[in-house]
């Protein structure tokens, strides 16, 4: 009997275009849009080399220190650490390049280093800072040599030209911090909650006061709770497959990095999916009114929960967790997001398993209330 009902519920649900759109296609489309938006954001934020011209005259050739400093700041082997893309040219040609907008500034030597800029901006500030820094260091070294030549032997020059950071950027886990990945966590959380459409549907097709098909099934010699449990199992299976497809799409096609702990990621997906499906069943059984109203509540509820977990505004999750922490524990989307977050950033599993525990508690709560609503086998009206 299980396979019979399970098989046909799988067929019904997978053939429902509307439900498959919301549970599979919509998250994929939204994920693609996120990807496009964040890729663009990254490219805007990415540092590109500053194009400058250096007038290659006699004085420039004599200043070995500056040439070495410039060489170091424009070394292509430095990769992203390279500041400048340098063109060595005459002053006239440099001016022509500057006027044409091909470079940001001209460095030339005429009784010292001079800088010609056309406009002000971040790149221009960087060029000026570079030159100022060079001049300051040169001045410091000259002063040391003039006043205390012995200091050269004691390594004071190296010390004055070296830079030390006293703050170090560190990650709590093995992965590099990435603010955009949180949006994809909330997307998966939202997709898990969209499994609620399946849960709602299964309540409808099993409650005789909600559909004619249910009335017919209720007249069969199979306990209605058995039919309901088998149907919910089918619903959870499909939603889990949908989440799996979404995960594959995000990781394989869009190359979103969710970390390497695949077992725990799957556990999160299973817990999130079951919570989503039971949430739909819960809404379907307690809300009086038409299916349209119930679907509206599910969409609004899922989006609100996703919003509160940071889907539209990445600081929202932090605000909720600091101002109303209890809301974070009652919000399945936040719990699912938190699971992924903790797996990605933390080396310990305390947060992860706490979140999983709360997801299980929410599932139990939704299931219990659904059971209390649908256990009756006779209705006041049909």
């Amino acid at each position, binding site marked *: 009997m299980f396979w019979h009902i399970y098989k046909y519920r799988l067929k019904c649900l997978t053939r429902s275009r509307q439900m498959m759109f919301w549970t599979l296609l919509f998250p994929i489309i939204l994920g693609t849009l996120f990807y496009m938006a964040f890729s663009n954001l990254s490219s805007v934020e990415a540092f590109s080399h500053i194009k400058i011209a250096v007038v290659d005259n006699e004085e420039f050739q004599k200043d070995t220190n500056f040439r070495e400093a410039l060489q170091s700041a424009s070394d292509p082997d430095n990769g992203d650490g390279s500041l400048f893309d340098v063109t060595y040219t005459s002053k006239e040609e440099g001016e022509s390049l500057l006027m044409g907008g091909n470079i940001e500034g001209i460095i030339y030597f005429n009784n010292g280093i001079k800088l010609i800029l056309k406009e002000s901006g971040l790149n221009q500030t960087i060029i000026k800072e570079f030159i100022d820094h060079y001049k300051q260091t040169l001045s410091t070294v000259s002063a040391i040599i003039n006043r205390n030549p012995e200091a050269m032997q004691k390594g004071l020059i190296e010390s004055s030209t070296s830079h030390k950071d006293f703050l170090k950027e560190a990650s709590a886990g093995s992965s590099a911090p990435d603010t955009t990945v949180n949006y994809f966590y909330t997307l998966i959380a939202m997709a898990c909650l969209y499994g609620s459409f399946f849960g709602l549907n299964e309540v409808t097709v099993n409650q005789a006061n909600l559909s004619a098909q249910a009335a*017919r099934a209720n007249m069969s010699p199979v306990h209605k709770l058995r039919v309901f449990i088998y149907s919910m199992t089918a619903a959870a299976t499909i939603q889990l497959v949908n989440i799996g497809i979404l995960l594959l799409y995000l990781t394989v096609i869009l190359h979103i990095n969710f970390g390497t702990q695949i077992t725990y990621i799957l556990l999160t997906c299973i817990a999130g999916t079951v919570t989503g499906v039971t949430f739909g069943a819960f809404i379907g059984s307690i809300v009086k009114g038409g299916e349209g109203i119930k679907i509206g509540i599910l969409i609004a509820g899922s989006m609100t929960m996703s919003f509160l977990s940071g889907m539209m505004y990445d600081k929202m999750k932090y605000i909720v967790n600091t101002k109303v922490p209890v809301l974070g524990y009652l919000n399945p989307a936040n719990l699912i997001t938190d699971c992924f977050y903790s797996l990605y950033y933390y080396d310990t599993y305390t947060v992860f398993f706490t979140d999983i525990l709360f997801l299980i508690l929410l599932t139990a709560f939704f299931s219990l209330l659904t059971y209390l609503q649908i256990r009756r*086998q006779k209705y006041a009206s049909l």
Partner: protein
Amino acid sequence: MVISVKNLTKRYGDLVALDHFNLEVGEGEILGLLGPNGSGKTTAINCILSLLKYEKGSIDIYGKPMAPEAYDLKRKIGIIMQNVAVFEELTVYENIDYFCGLYISDKNKRRSLVIEAMDFVGLNDYGKFYPKKLSGGLLRRLNIACGIAHKPDLIILDEPTVAVDPQSRNNILEGIQRLNREGATVIYTSHYMEEVEQICTRIAIMDKGKIIATGNKEELKAMINSGEKITVEIYNPENRILTDVKNLPHIVSAFFHDSFLTVKSERDKNNLMVLIDYLKTRQIAFGKIYSEPPTLNDVFLEITGKELRD
């Protein structure tokens, strides 16, 4: 006795939907439950099936109390709902197989039953069709196939021919008679008296949640005073004609409706020739004339004072 319902009372708030409703259905019968919309037919069926709660009364099926967990009884029942109860996402074959599978677990046996049911309702060529591709009539036939595929002993059909074309209606009515011949007991609810007269071996007429008359069609018609109804088209309807006709022997009532004179006779009395003689003698010009035996509508009208289709 297949079904025995005693003193069933069901309320929807202040509205009494079933008022001490009593019904007995014997084995092999086709019982027609006839009544206007809102008379309580569907409520009675849903209570009998243990889908609806009720305030008072008892329902026994095959001598056992009917309850939601009476699975041995449910196994013997086939239900065809008023609303088409099939899944849009399953094909014709799959729909029948799904519902049949709730009763029959053996796959091979089920396959032959599904094919038999499709053949029975004439859907053999539509096995791979989805319900939305079917016409209203074919959809109703699918609805029936889903309810009978497991070969139930008791079949309950709740207005199965609503919004069905004449061809499908005949197919459905013939099918019900065939099921009955094969041994099934049938309860058939309808507000179409012609259908009930055509197929039912016994008829229970309902109004306001009560059975107001029971019997076969002849017994029911014998309960009322009026007999044949004669309708004559009179080209110049005048009041004196009405007065004269009412004075003819064995006339129960006479009235004009536009240019048509309707005359009702006493039961078992024939007034057609008398009326024609009168019209000829008085040289009253008349056109069409026809005579009808009393219908179940006349029975309902005489008992309740209102038309069956009100």
